Structures are given as C-alpha cells and as structure tokens.
C-alpha cells in the first residue's frame, strides 16, 4: 500500500475498537482514538492493567481484529499484506501451538510459511532450538511440553524469519526466571541489531528493564507516554551507594544531610531475587544435576550470558550490533537493582517486618495512621489491578 519506507515501525491513526453484543447493543469501548507511534529501532512497551486494551491494539495491528474506526500501519503497510507479515515476528499472549507436532516440526512449519528454503530452515531451527534451550527435546511432541517450554518454542517461531519488527505479547508469562532473563537479554540484543520490539506486558519490572519508551494504557486510552527515564526519574531524591560504613561515618553523613534539611535513610541493598535465583541454578547446572526441563545456557557471568545470546543472534539475524546504543540500555538495566525506596514491597512491609529496611533515626516520621493505611490499601489495589497507579504515584511525588 505505502511504498516508501515509513519512519515509524507502527503508526496508528485514531484507532478505535468498540465491541457490541450480538444485537450491537451494550457496547464496550476497548480502544478509543489511539494515535500511537513506535519508532524504528526502539523497544516500546505497551503497559496497562488487564482489560486496558493492550492486546486489542496488537490484534488490530496484526489484522486479527478489524478496527471500528481509524487505521493502523505496520512497517508502512497493512499487516494483511504478505510483504509486511514477512518482516514481522509475533508471539501471542500464550503459545498456541500444534500439540501433535514436535518442536522441530513446529519450527519447520512456521519456516515454510515464510517460504524459507530447507537449508536456511534447518540451520535457523538448530540455532533457535539451541537458543531457547530445547535442542535436546527437538523430537518431543509440543503437547507434552510445560507452559514455559511451549513459550520458548513460541518465541523461537517468532524469530524464525529474522523479523524487522517483533511484537511480543506478555513474552515472559509462564517462564522461569532464567527464561525471563534470557528474553530480556534477547530483546536488548535485538534492539542493538536495529530491530524494533513492541512489547506488551503487565510485568512492570520486565518492561522497565528493556524498554526505551513506554505507554501506559487504561480504559482504551494512553494515559502516559514517554521514555523510561522521563517517566520514572525521581527528581526530588538522590541515592548514594557506598561500601560498608562504620556507625560513626554514618552519623557524620546524617548530620550533614540533616543540616541541609533533607531526609536520610540507610539500608543494606538486598540482592534481587532474580539474580540470586539465577546464581543458584547456575551452580546446580555446573554440578551437572539431571533435569527433564529446559536446559538453559547458563554462563558463568552476566557478560558471558549476553555474549552467548549475541552469538546465537549472529547466526540468526542479518544485521550486526550498532554499538552506540549499547550503553544506554545497559544503564537502564543496572539502575533497577538499587532502587528500593518506592517499591510496593517496602511500603507494604514497613509497619510489620523491620528487618527488611533499617530506618536509622527519628526522621522516619510516621504518617498519620489513617493516611498510611489508605496508602497501603491503594497499593494493594494497584497490585491487584496490575499496578496501573504507578504512573500517578510518580507524578504526585
């Protein structure tokens, strides 16, 4: 349809989806007047609580649902056009696969749909199975796979055509932490190679780590849109990380800070459960404990892991890494590890378990009880609806 290369990977114009019942009554607005622009070569996160219209947007982009109004361009064309779909990789919200085919046959089937010749198919399938850790299970029927293993095959099929645009709907659902980590590494690596990733998730931590920009949807509208830094930076706080300090030194620092009239809090940074978990599994893998599950490539260090993903991608992806992008994303990944204060967990446990945080002095002014419990309630609610309130929290300070 549109021949010239559009500057946007995804562009929607007043995209609207209204669901009616069989008679066309009691209409529900799923998505309304959505104008979304995803740049080429960025990782874009579409976030929102359940029922906010994320998946509906994706389905409209892919032509699985027809928009009630407006239109969507994907890679400058309509997604029904085989020329466009040839450049898209799509991972649906669950891996819907053919249970009677085995892993290799499944990937072969999708490879054929892209018209890849048998030689290309064979080599890509080997590389992908290796990457998702299912090389040893290539001839087992998909029907016998656990959800997470099926998810890995789903991811592999999305990558079989070396897509320019990768649309991932809840990519980490059902995956173990290592799989989650690998997907995140993968997304980062793909972005380095000039691919565009449209990520749809309500697992905020995952999105936060990898996305360049994100939109938070609620009620079919985009509530906030911007780069991760723009949205999350707390301009009224500063964090200092040091080695172990004596009580004396701490007192000195406190007095300095209090002199400037600012709040002061000391805590021992916790290791994140994710990195701890990966460490444990890595240890077991090294000792060669048997497993019937997915075998992950577990390299000794994070650098090695990234290198391993990069290796496989070298076999799979035509484009090579664009170096200047690397550092930016790394930064985003690193900062999250030491950002405890606003986390919901901390707030929820503040009144009870004192071991988690170590408030040092009276500065910990207790908020009036009613407000505090209100806060907690709000946070539990946020938690329940998928933490959609996070953005508002940030805004209010």
């Amino acid at each position, binding site marked *: 349809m549109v021949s010239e290369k559009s500057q946007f990977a995804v562009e929607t114009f007043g995209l609207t989806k209204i*669901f009616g019942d069989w008679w066309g009554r009691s209409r*529900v607005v*799923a998505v309304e007047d959505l104008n979304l622009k995803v740049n080429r070569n960025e990782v874009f996160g579409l976030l929102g609580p359940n*029922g906010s219209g994320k*998946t*509906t947007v994706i*389905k409209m982009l*892919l*032509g*699985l*649902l*027809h928009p009630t109004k407006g239109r969507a361009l994907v890679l400058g064309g309509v*997604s029904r056009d*085989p*020329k466009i*779909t*040839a450049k*898209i990789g*799509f*991972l*649906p919200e*669950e891996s*819907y*696969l*053919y249970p*009677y*085919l085995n892993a290799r*046959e499944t990937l072969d*089937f*999708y490879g*054929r*749909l*892209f*018209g890849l010749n048998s030689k290309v198919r064979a080599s890509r399938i080997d590389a992908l199975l290796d990457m998702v850790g299912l090389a040893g299970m290539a001839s087992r*029927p998909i029907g016998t796979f656990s959800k997470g293993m099926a998810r890995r095959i*789903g991811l592999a*099929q*999305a990558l079989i*055509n070396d897509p320019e645009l990768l649309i991932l709907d809840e990519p980490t659902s059902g995956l173990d932490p290592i799989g989650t980590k690998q997907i995140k590494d993968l997304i980062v690596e793909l972005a380095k190679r000039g691919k565009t990733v449209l990520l749809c998730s309500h697992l905020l931590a995952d999105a936060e780590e990898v996305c360049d920009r994100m939109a938070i949807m609620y009620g079919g509208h985009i509530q906030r849109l911007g780069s991760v830094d723009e949205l999350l930076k707390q301009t009224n706080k500063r964090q200092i990380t040091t080695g172990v300090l004596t009580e004396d030194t701490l007192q000195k620092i406190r007095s300095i800070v209090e002199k400037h009239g600012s709040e002061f809090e000391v805590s021992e940074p916790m290791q994140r459960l994710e990195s701890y978990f990966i460490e444990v599994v890595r240890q077991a893998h090294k000792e060669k404990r048997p497993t019937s599950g997915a075998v992950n490539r577990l390299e000794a260090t994070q650098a090695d892991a990234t290198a391993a993903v990069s290796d496989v991608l070298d076999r799979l992806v035509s484009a090579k890494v664009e170096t200047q992008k690397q550092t930016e994303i790394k930064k985003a990944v690193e900062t999250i590890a030491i950002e405890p204060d606003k986390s919901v967990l901390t707030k929820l446990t503040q009144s009870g378990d004192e071991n988690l945080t170590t408030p040092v002095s009276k500065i910990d002014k207790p908020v009036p009880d009613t407000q505090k419990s209100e806060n907690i309630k709000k946070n539990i609610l946020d938690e329940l609806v998928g933490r959609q309130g996070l953005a508002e929290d940030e805004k209010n300070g």
Partner: protein
Amino acid sequence: MGRIWAVARNTFVSAVRMKTAIVFMAMLLILLPILSLTSTGDGTAIGRVQSFVSYGLGLVSFLLSMLTIVVACYTLSSDVKHKRVYSVVTKPIRRFEFVIGKALGVILLDLLLLAVFSGVIYGLTIQMPRFAKTSDEELVRLKNEFFTARASLKRTIDEQALEKQTDDVYKELVRTGQLDESRSRESVMAELRNAAKYNMYAAGPGGTVLWEFKKVRPFDANESLFIRFKFNAAQTPADKSLYGVWYVGDYRQIQGGPETMKTPIYQIPRKDVVGTMREFEVPADAVAADGYLAVGFYNEPMNGTTVIFPIEDGFEVLYKAGGFGGNFISAVLIMFARLVFLACLGVSLSTWVGFPVAILCSLTIFFTGVINGFVVQSFDYLGQNLTIFYSVTIKPLIWLLPKFDQNYNVNKYLIDARMIRFGFLMLAAGVLLLKSLILLLIGFFIFAKRELAKVVI
C-alpha cells in the same frame, strides 16, 4: 504453493497422529478380513463376492465419510478456537491459502486411507473364490457376471420424435372428427403417447419387436453379448411359455444380399417362460464395424397371442466393455470425489461456525445426500406453489446437496458388474468437485472477512 503445502502437511500429520484416525484405520483393518470370511450372500460363489464387495465398500465409504467429516470440521475450527491461527495468519500466507491447505490436508488423508482400504478390498475380492471350494461352473459365472464390467444397452426413447408423432395423430383425429368433444387435449395426448410406446414394445402373432443400438463398443469381438429380457403375454398360454426367434446382428446387410455380409446375423429360436428374467449369450462379432447392433424378436404365429416387453426392464443387452479392475477404480474415484466434497464442506463450514455446529450440519448434509432422491422429490412437490421464490432460494441449495443414492450408489455397479462409463464418472465426480469449489469459495470469502480473534475485554 509452498505455503499451502505446509498447511496441508501439518493438517495431515496432525490428523494421522490424532487417535481418531488410528481408531478408524484399526477398525477397518480388522473388520475387512473378517467380512471377507463371513460374507455368504445367497451361498453361491458369486453371492459371496457380491456381498463382500457391497458391505466392504459400503463400510469403507461410510467410515471414511465420518472420519472426513470429523477431521474436516475439527482441523480449522480447533485452530481458531485454540487460537493457533494467531501465529499462522500473521505469517505471509493469504487466508484463502490457509483454507485450501486445510482442505488439501484432509483430502490427502482421504487419498491415503482410501487407496489402502480399497486396495485391501480389491485384493481380498480377487482372492475370495480361493477361500472356499468353487466349482468350474461357478468360476465361469464369476468371470462373466462379476469380474467384468459390462455396458448395458437399453432403448432410449426419442421424446421429441414421439411427441411429434402423437401430435400428428392427434391432428389427424381432430381433422377427421373422431374425437369425443368432452375430452381434453392432454388426456387424449397421454393416451396416444402410451399407445405409441406400447407399440414399440409389443408384437402380435407373426409380428416383430426391434431394438436398434448405435456406438456399441465391445471390449473384444471374441467376447459375448448377453441379452436379458422378460416378456408377458396378452393371454397367458397353458404352459406359460412362448415361442419366438431372436435375430441378433446388422440387419441392414440383408438388403444388400448375402455377398455383402461382413458380420454374422445370429438366429436363435427359443421357448421361454413369461414374466421371468431370462438371459442368453450371443458372440459379440454380431456388432457391425460402425458399432451398429440390431436385436429383433419374432413372435411365432403359433403362440396366438401378443407378446409385450415391459418398458422399464423388459429388454437389455449387456456386453463386456471393460475389466473389473478398471471399473473398481472408477467406483473408488467416485467415492473419493464424495470424500473431497465432504472435506470441503467441513472446512468451509468451520470457517465461520465452531466444531459442534459444523459437524451437525455436515452430518445432516451427508445423510440428506444418502436419501437425496427422496428429499429432492418432496421439495419439488412442496415447492410447486412457491414457484419463483422456490427456484431462486431453495432450489440452488438443494442442488448443492450431494447425491450419494440411486445412480450414484457405486456399489450397485460393481455388484451387477455394470460398466461405470467414463462420461458418467466425469459427470458424477465433476459435479461433486464443482460443488466443493463453490463451498470453498464461500469459505474463502467468510474467512477473509471475519475477525479471527475472539472478543476479549
């Protein structure tokens, strides 16, 4: 094409690995050999093979039809229901290619299963005479009346000529004023028509009934023609038998004198019981080089009564026009066309309805096809008063219904060792394939337009 093939292969592999296909196959592989041993028919050798072929092919055809309906309705609708289409239609494949692929996969499965099971039936049928002690006489009968494909010649009445002839007679009657004023033209014409037909099939004492056929092509001039007939007498004689002489050959030669005779004219005097089907054999070289064949029956004056051949089944010439194998293949091809139709039907239905509805519709249509003649007749009768409405709505739909009964019941041909003519094969298979195509086109249209994702909020 590669994409269609990928979908077809996937469908085929999934269907083979589905337990239903295995169950159907196991059932047939056990039942068929048992059937070959237990089929007795009327106790004769020919009765045994006839009942085996009839039940065997009937069973295979029925079970494969059921399997086709189940698989065809399941394959596409389950892909939609279990959302497997999400990751297929978002690949560079057109939706109609996906639908074709699905139908093709089911058709491939049918092709394979039908080839295997018809092969099994064919093998068992050929071997059956050896299972039980069979006399030489029975073997000859088997060869002539079962392991062969006989073409049948019957008089076709030229309705137009008949109409013109009766009309002339009617005008003559009107002109000469011999008609009763109170009678309508229709009733007079009907009576005249019947009388004209009767004259073609009846002969008074010393008279002759003549049948002429063109384009008769015997398989081999050394084979035989089989003349099957049944006659009645206006006044049944005491011993219930009539004398007559049959002349078989090219009677046009008689006018040219004995020296122009190229093919023999056989003269067979016979005495036969009235009201029973009789059959006699004549060498096939009686047929002229241009395929002309005449059969005449001379009513001996000594009978003293008029001989009448029933219009429907009074006279037929059967001759070997092909082999059993060829005929068997034709029958299997018609069965295959039927399965193709059912596959397209199931896939087409499941482009817009779910599995339960699709299978219910398919089964209804299948069983309607089995009694098609009855359905068409009753609708034609009921639709008489609806005229235009009927002919633009219900009639095309009824036309879309498959015909599996009457002439299209292929078992009948094999049991009677009747040749399935190439033209008939093409017509029967062609019509079914045309209907399949129409169904698929409807399916393409719906599948291309519909939203494949469910409404989830």
